[in-house]
């Protein structure tokens, strides 16, 4: 089903524009899954707002990326849109492209007869300005005036003409989104028909793999892999089913700053920088994710000359392995001598990076421990929907050779 993010363009306790969105959410529930977003949750826009105050902004960007379309419900204040709505748009357009080409629609309610016509005109100009560049549906104006007659006391829209117009416009909007999505898919199909190198083999010194095999190996191994390239952009993730970190292709190409929750950025950057500077090769974080024991390992990716190519994040549930261990799978050494050997050699690359045994703690100890980067994970970070949240390492201490596992709270709840 189509996912629509609908902005109630107000911070007032009572708002007809919010009522309109609630009506739409119910009325169109067969057609679209409408989530109402309260812009009052965001901090007032300022270019000087510190990163640590931008967690809510980051969450909103993730929601926008995951949405098929945006609906803006705008009151009119002094012939313009309310400051609080303008502030939200400034956040969504500042150093980010999340609204770029996103289908958008404007609706609005006002007390008087002229409805919110002027603020909607202004809103249109704003939404097509270069930094927003939404794919705004032309026409299809939803201007609901005379609230006292159009809304019942219980908040339902009761004016039949207004409802008919709303239905027509919203249906057009859904079609509009579909058309653009089909165009995009059409282009993709075209691409598949073109010659590709999918039948070619990559010749490694140790054998050859077809591209399909490469893809399927990454989808099959029980760990998921993400790559931040040498320029600190999110370049790739493995297409493993049931990932611990749910990723979205809309995040590909983003910088580390964009694709992580603001509170996590300093810690992530300190890992990446320690890799780039050659101070470390691996950082390990045992933690609980989605209700099971998991392991995240960050590895420096280097070419054979040791030049930094990027950072890979290697994540997976270790429940299966731990169960084997707890059930004594390694106890009878004679028959399984082989595994002992691999065990030893596996430790080599980690020499100095040995995981501190005492850090296996679960996320519950998280907040207390957030240490030297001065950005303890806020309590509400745990509610992050980790569409990208790559490595929400609140507090991995780059100076310390032991990875601090007592972080990662944010990875769990969603």
């Amino acid at each position, binding site marked *: 089903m189509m996912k629509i993010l609908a902005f109630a363009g107000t911070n007032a306790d009572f708002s007809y524009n919010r009522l309109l969105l609630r009506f739409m959410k119910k009325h169109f529930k067969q057609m679209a899954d409408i989530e109402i977003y309260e812009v009052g949750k965001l901090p007032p826009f300022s270019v000087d707002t510190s990163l640590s105050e931008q967690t809510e902004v980051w969450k909103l960007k993730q929601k926008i990326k995951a949405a098929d379309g945006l609906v803006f419900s705008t009151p009119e204040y002094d012939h313009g849109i309310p400051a609080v709505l303008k502030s939200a748009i400034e956040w969504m357009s500042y150093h980010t492209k999340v609204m770029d080409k996103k289908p958008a629609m404007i609706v609005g309610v006002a007390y008087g007869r002229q409805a919110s016509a002027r603020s909607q005109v202004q809103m249109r100009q704003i939404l097509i300005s270069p930094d*927003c560049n939404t794919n705004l549906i032309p026409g299809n104006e939803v201007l609901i005036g005379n609230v006292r007659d159009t809304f019942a006391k219980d908040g339902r829209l009761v004016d039949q003409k207004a409802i008919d117009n709303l239905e027509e416009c919203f249906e057009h909007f859904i079609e509009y989104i579909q058309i653009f999505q089909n165009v995009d898919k059409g282009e993709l199909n075209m691409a598949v028909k073109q010659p590709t190198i999918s039948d070619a083999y990559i010749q490694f010194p140790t054998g050859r793999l077809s591209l399909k095999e490469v893809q399927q190996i990454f989808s099959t191994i029980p760990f998921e892999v993400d790559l931040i390239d040498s320029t600190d952009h999110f370049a790739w993730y493995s297409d493993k089913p049931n990932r611990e970190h749910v990723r979205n292709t809309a995040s590909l190409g983003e910088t580390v700053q964009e694709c992580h929750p603001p509170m996590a950025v300093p810690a992530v950057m300190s890992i990446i920088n320690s890799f780039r500077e050659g101070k470390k090769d691996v950082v390990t974080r045992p933690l609980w994710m989605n209700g099971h024991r998991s392991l995240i390992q960050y590895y420096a990716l280097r070419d054979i000359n040791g030049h930094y190519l990027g950072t890979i994040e290697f994540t997976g549930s270790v429940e299966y392995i731990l169960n084997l261990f707890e059930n004594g799978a390694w106890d009878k050494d004679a028959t399984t001598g082989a595994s002992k050997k691999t065990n030893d050699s596996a430790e080599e690359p980690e020499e100095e990076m040995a995981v501190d045994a005492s850090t296996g703690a679960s996320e519950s100890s998280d907040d207390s421990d957030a240490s030297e980067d001065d950005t303890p994970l806020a309590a509400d970070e745990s509610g992050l929907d980790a569409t990208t949240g790559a490595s929400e390492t609140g507090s991995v201490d780059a100076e310390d050779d032991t990875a601090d596992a007592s972080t990662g709270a944010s990875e769990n709840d969603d």
Partner: protein
Amino acid sequence: MKIAAIAGSNANHSYNRMLLEFMAHHFKDQDQIDVIDIRQVPMFNESFKGDAPEVIKDIDQRIKAADAVIIASPEYNHSITSALKSVVEWLSYKVHPLTGKPVMTIGASTKDQGASRSQVQLRDILISPGINASVYQGDEFFMSNVTSLMDYDGHVTDEGTIHFLEKCMNGFRFYAKAIDQMNKEMNNK
């Protein structure tokens, strides 16, 4: 003339605020320009309990004490900043110091064509019924590519710009006097 000058940006380093400070200095022999910094103004909220936050009461008094108002507005997304819009909303809600006041809008932007759209919009906002200011429709003073006309510390370095600013101020003073006269006559009736 006593002028309250609102700097419509909440950025710590703001060309619009510096432009007003430059004007306060440059025109000090003719005008007393009180530059109003809006960084402390909270987001407007219709559900606010009470008249207005203290900062707004302060701004209200300073505008009331002035003969005329200048608003310097940046352009964000082809529109005025949310920070300035929030101030305007507070000033159209429980207190209305802009009613009938002569207001001139100016603007500075770092981009090409900058601030022209936001000026048009700001004028439209200022004549809405809740505000009802007397907006000076004469010269349009806005500085696009402001960094080529003003240095980082806020000195306007371009002579042509300064001359045009002087011309605009002359026109505005004349307009403000006329509006003042008109307001007095209307009050006498």
